[in-house]
């Protein structure tokens, strides 16, 4: 599915932010939950003409149980691995019903929400399938970097060196020994119209990207870093700060890729040392200077790669235009 004409969306201004709450208060997330904040912002940006498919995970269990239901839109809880597949079904059914005239023709968005386990591990196959088939939907991965719902087990999205209950740090191990899986890059490899990374600390950037994703025809993938004070072992009042440092140190750069063209939004200044980000969190407390240095090197490398992609993609686009 090729994107049709793109609407000129310039971004929300601070005074234009929607007041309507579609993910409301009263849910039972932990204090300082970055994921719940992210969902609230996502729903503000999407508006109420939407059907949500939510995989099993923290966000499902905190927001759905009676009487703490937080959703003001049609919502379906699916199994762990199939948010993208169920969203595909919803989108196809809407299309078919509208084509046959059984539903009024209008734009109804389809939003799939899953955690990092449901995206990077068990749900990767379903995600890849849905992106490849080109369904018109948005997939938001709320990445808190471990299976927090079941009690902080590692996932393939857990960063190097982090301690979790199944990657314990001790004499035999430094915690997680593999590097975080880059699902945004995997989504990019499907050549879909829109891929972006967001963090609720940068709320305006986040809402703008969600708005862009939802108005882009075809599949869009949004990877959201959601700080989790419970699992990251930091104080709940630091959620926003930790998110900011993740971005400013380059651990989690915010960028968007529109039809193959990459643009880095943040960090837009010189990188801060990763130590500032790591030392706020108990899950990295055991790391020695040696390992912090290894992480620092890796971050530099990844940022350099991303900057190269940014340069190359604009160069490539110009070259194609002048071909």
């Amino acid at each position: 599915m090729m994107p049709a004409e793109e609407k000129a969306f310039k971004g929300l201004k601070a005074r234009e932010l929607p007041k309507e709450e579609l993910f409301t208060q009263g849910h039972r997330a932990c204090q300082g939950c970055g994921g719940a904040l992210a969902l609230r912002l996502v729903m503000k940006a999407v508006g109420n003409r939407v059907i949500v498919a939510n995989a099993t995970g923290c966000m499902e269990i905190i927001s759905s149980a009676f009487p703490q239901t937080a959703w003001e839109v049609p919502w379906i809880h699916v199994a762990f691995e199939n948010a993208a597949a169920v969203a595909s079904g919803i989108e196809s059914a809407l299309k078919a019903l509208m084509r046959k005239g059984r539903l009024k023709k209008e734009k109804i968005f389809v939003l799939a929400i899953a955690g990092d386990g449901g995206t990077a591990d068990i749900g990767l196959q379903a995600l890849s399938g849905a992106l490849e088939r080109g369904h018109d939907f948005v997939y938001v991965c709320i990445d808190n970097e471990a299976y927090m719902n079941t009690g902080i087990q590692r996932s393939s999205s857990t960063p190097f060196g982090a301690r979790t209950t199944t990657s314990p740090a001790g004499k035999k191990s430094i915690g997680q020994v593999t590097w975080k899986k880059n699902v945004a890059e995997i989504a990019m490899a499907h050549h879909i119209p829109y891929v972006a990374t967001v963090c609720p600390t940068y709320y305006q950037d986040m809402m703008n990207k969600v708005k862009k994703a939802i108005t882009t025809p075809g599949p869009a993938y949004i990877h959201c870093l959601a700080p989790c004070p419970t699992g990251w072992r930091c104080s709940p009042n630091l959620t926003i700060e930790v998110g900011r440092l993740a971005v400013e140190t380059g651990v989690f750069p915010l960028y968007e890729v529109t039809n193959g063209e990459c643009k880095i939004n943040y960090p837009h200044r010189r990188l801060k040392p990763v130590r500032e980000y790591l030392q706020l969190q108990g899950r990295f407390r055991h790391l020695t200077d040696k390992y912090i240095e290894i992480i620092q090197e890796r971050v530099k490398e990844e940022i350099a790669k991303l900057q190269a992609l940014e340069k190359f993609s604009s160069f490539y686009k110009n070259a194609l235009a002048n071909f």
Partner: protein
Amino acid sequence: MGKDVLTGVHFLSGNHACVEGAIAAGCRFYAGYPITPSNEIAERMSVRLPQVGGIYIQMEDELASMAALVGASWGGAKPMTATSGPGLSLMQENIGLAAMTESPCVVVDVQRGSPSTGLPTLVGQADVMQARWGSHGDYEIIALAPSSPQECFDFMIKAFNLAEIWRVPVIFLSDESVAHLSERVVIPPKEEIKLVTRKRPSVPPEKFLPFKPGSDLVPEMPIAGEGYRVHVTGLTHNEKGYPDLSAKVHNKLVPRLVNKIRKNADKIVEYEELFTEDAEVILVTFGISTRICRDVIKRARAEGLKVGLFRLITIWPFPEKRIMALAQKIKAFVTVEINLGQVAIEMERIVKERCKTFLIPNAGGAVHDPDEVFAEVKQIVSGLVE
């Protein structure tokens, strides 16, 4: 290196006792995926296995976990995974593969309220039939059900031994209540724990047929990399292990897979009886429900009611012979289980007209209330007298 058998008296939860049982049984490979209420097994394994030189890997889903067990089994390890109902459903294709390729392995299923996501943090016992026939085709497995942390430890050793002897996946049907119950667990000295390992090739590689069964219908098992030709397949295979897609070979292979359990059931089946000698009514149960029934029996005996207990230790294979024998003597069987009649249907099939069968069901979320079970048992007993 840490100790593999933590001899002594401990205060352990069912899940932690499973881990210690597995490690004492020689398990050195764990592949799993987080799911409530089995997480404590994975967590303790991730700490304990590196201490004893084992390997813990967290897989990307349950399909991969179970597939890793098949691979590890043929690599010579005693492998294990732990999951709950939804995870067991995802594992089913590979459990079929393990049954077809005769790969010894142990799958702990900590049952929870179901179907689907159900009640992740509350008890259920509704995976009985899924454990038996969840995968497609005809095959037989062994399933054990513990009722206490001590039994989690003891039966885990039993489970590994059975898997090794009969070369089948063994499903360990724990449940949320047993898993999260903390009790005294006595771990015996290492010398007192009897371990069995799979039959190894008795002839040199050039004469060896990997799927030629012995008199017990179980073939000897080589390990990849030992010099024996190992060709393992989920396709119908002949005694050499190569695919042979003919009705003749299929009708030899599949009946053997089934019969190695059915014909040897007497050697596998285990159960526990209480007051069955003079009982008129016998409660049939397993897992956590056993503890409820023990209480009910005590009360019934105090009131002079002749009620006994038949507790399944192996659910599969089912202790058919003993139940048939008991059915001749008594008036009724009452099945008490936290599902809507999965063992009860098996009881009806076996007992037929020999005596009456009743069911005290419970959809899950909590164990039976002993008062209610006792009241129902009393009613059944009085109904039988009239």
